[in-house]
Structure formats: C-alpha cells, structure tokens
C-alpha cells in the first residue's frame, strides 16, 4: 500500500533518543512512513535508525538541519509522498500534534506547530523570546505573514511545498526556520500555525549563558536582515 505521509526526522548524534522517538511516531501515526536523516552522526544513530525506521538516509558529513530537510524533501518528491512532517530526533516534539498537523495539511501548504499560540506555557529565556518576537516582526514586515513561532521545527509541508523545498530548502543558519518561511510565502504558499506543546530538552544544552544568548541574538538580527536582502538573488541562482 502506497503511503502518502512521510515523517522526516533529522538526527545528529541522537543514539540515546532516536529509538524511542521512532517508536512513538510509529505508534501515534501507523499510516505514515518514517524517514531518519542521519546528518553525519559520529555515534550509533545510523545503526539504531536502520533497525527501527522505514527509511534511513545518511549524510557523509554534518551539513545542518536545513540540508537534512532538503534531502528529506527530495526523497519525498522522488518517492511521490503528498505530505512531509518534520519531527525532532531529540524527543522535544510531542507526537500528540502530528495528526493535527496532518489534518491541517489537507487544506494548507505549510503548517507550523507554535509554542506561543493558545494556552501553551512554554518556558524560555527572555532573550530567546525576544529573538523569536523579532523574527516574527521581520516576517510580518518583510513578507506580510503572521507567525508567532518562526523557529519551530515541528512543521509540515504538503505537495506544493514539497516541490518547492526539494530544490530550494535553505541550508544557511536560520534557513530551515525563517528562510523556508520567507521562500514559502514569496512563492505564494499558504501558511498556518497551530498551537502545540513541546517537551523540555532531554539533556544536552539546557540554558545558554547570557553572553552566548546575546551573541545568538545579534547573529539572528544580522542574518535575518541579510536573508530578506538576498532572497531574490538566492532564489534565482538555485533555480
């Protein structure tokens, strides 16, 4: 039976989480195929994924989430999937919302799970919230779309978006979050947010130092400004 939904899990050194994540996804939506994109992991991620996932693709080098998702969209396009849902390999996303994103994808090209819509209470550092607000503002000013959580990686794409992203999904810093939304809206795709709840990060970098956050913030401002300025030429080049 040909399946139409692909759940794409970009993973970098997630040996301790990936098995649980794949199992949960398969349990939550048995009608989907699961693809793990191993983005050059140096641990056992590849082996574990090949045992539990329907498909595994492995990058020879670590290229970043943007490149991993571009590979995923290429795979989806080539194999004729109608819907792709991106899901984190670190257990941060909850499977509760995959179905909802899938349902929304029937009518919308791009669906984003937002931590800040509705009654969600997601605790983040002030400076991170500030950065996310800034990105929202940029999207509103630059391409006239209202997105409350542009950095969310819990999102879905339907056929039109898959066709677009397979060739042009941005690989730069912030490209997989902000950049892809700019491209989608400039190409006239419909974008919708739904409220989701995310788990706290299981281990790993919990909170950054203030200095690191500041650096992050300045970088976000500069990168997003550049992104709007260079969108046209980038787009022309990649076609």
């Amino acid at each position, binding site marked *: 039976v040909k399946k139409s939904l692909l759940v794409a899990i970009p993973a970098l050194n997630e040996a301790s989480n990936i098995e649980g994540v794949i199992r949960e996804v398969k349990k939550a939506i048995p009608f989907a195929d699961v693809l793990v994109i191993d983005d050059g992991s140096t641990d056992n991620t590849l082996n574990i994924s090949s045992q539990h996932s329907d498909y595994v693709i*492995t*990058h020879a*080098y670590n*290229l970043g989430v943007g490149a991993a998702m571009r590979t995923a969209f290429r*795979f989806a396009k080539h194999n004729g999937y109608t819907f792709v849902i991106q899901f984190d390999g670190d257990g941060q996303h909850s499977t509760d919302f995959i179905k909802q994103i899938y349902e929304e994808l029937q009518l919308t090209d791009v669906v984003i799970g937002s931590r800040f819509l509705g009654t969600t209470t997601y605790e983040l550092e002030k400076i991170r919230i500030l950065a996310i607000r800034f990105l929202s503002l940029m999207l509103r000013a630059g391409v006239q779309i209202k997105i409350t959580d542009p950095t969310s990686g819990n999102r879905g794409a339907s056929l039109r978006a898959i066709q677009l992203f397979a060739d042009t999904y941005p690989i730069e810093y912030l490209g997989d979050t902000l950049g892809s939304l700019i491209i989608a809206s400039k190409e006239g795709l419909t974008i919708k947010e739904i409220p989701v709840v995310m788990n706290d990060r299981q281990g790993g970098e919990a909170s950054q130092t203030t200095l690191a956050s500041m650096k992050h913030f300045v970088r976000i401002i500069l990168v997003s400004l550049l992104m709007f300025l260079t969108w046209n030429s980038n787009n022309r080049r990649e076609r």
Partner: protein
Amino acid sequence: VRYFLGLLSSTLFLGAIVRTVLKGVMRLRYSILWLVLGIGVLIIAVAPNLLEIFASFFDIAIPLNLLFFFALTIMGFVIFMISSENSFLQIKLVDLVSKVALLEQQVNSLSEIVEKKKN
C-alpha cells in the same frame, strides 16, 4: 650585497610558486595570480629605487607606505576572492552530499530487492 635578505626571501618565494605551478597541483587562475605577485616582489627586491619613484609619483612621503598600501589591497582582494569561492564550493558540497545520500539509499533498497528475488 645590498638587500641580501630581501633578495633571498623573494627568490625563495618565487621558487616555491614556480615549483607548485610546475607540479600542476594549482589551478591556472591562482597560478597566474601568484606568479605575478612573486615576480613583483622580486622586482622590488632587486630594485628598491622603483618603490621611491612610484612613491613620489603618487605623492607619498614614505615609500614604505606605498608597499603597505599595495600589500594590504592585494591581500584583501585575495582573501575576498578565496572566501567567495569557498562559499560557492560549500554550497556545491552540500548539494553533492545530499544527492549522494539519496543515491546510496536507492542503491541499498534496490539491492535488497535483488537479494530477495535471488532467494
């Protein structure tokens, strides 16, 4: 010999460039750039008076400043060129790795089918 150190180092510099070029490990456009630079350095080492003549032509009081000016300009240009070409290569590399990964997956799944048919 006057300016012995300058002559020696510029000769070694040019020698290293020529050797690399002759080995054919450097692409032509870079070879030309470095050859021209190496010859330029050697000329100034042989005839430092040239520097003074050029400096007075450009109304620069201290000839050494002219050297610094040229050196900085050329280095800036070279570094800019290299970083833009490096970016281009990185973009190509990402695409290539992505495509190879997809092909690898296809080959693996095809060979699985073949194995099954054999058995």
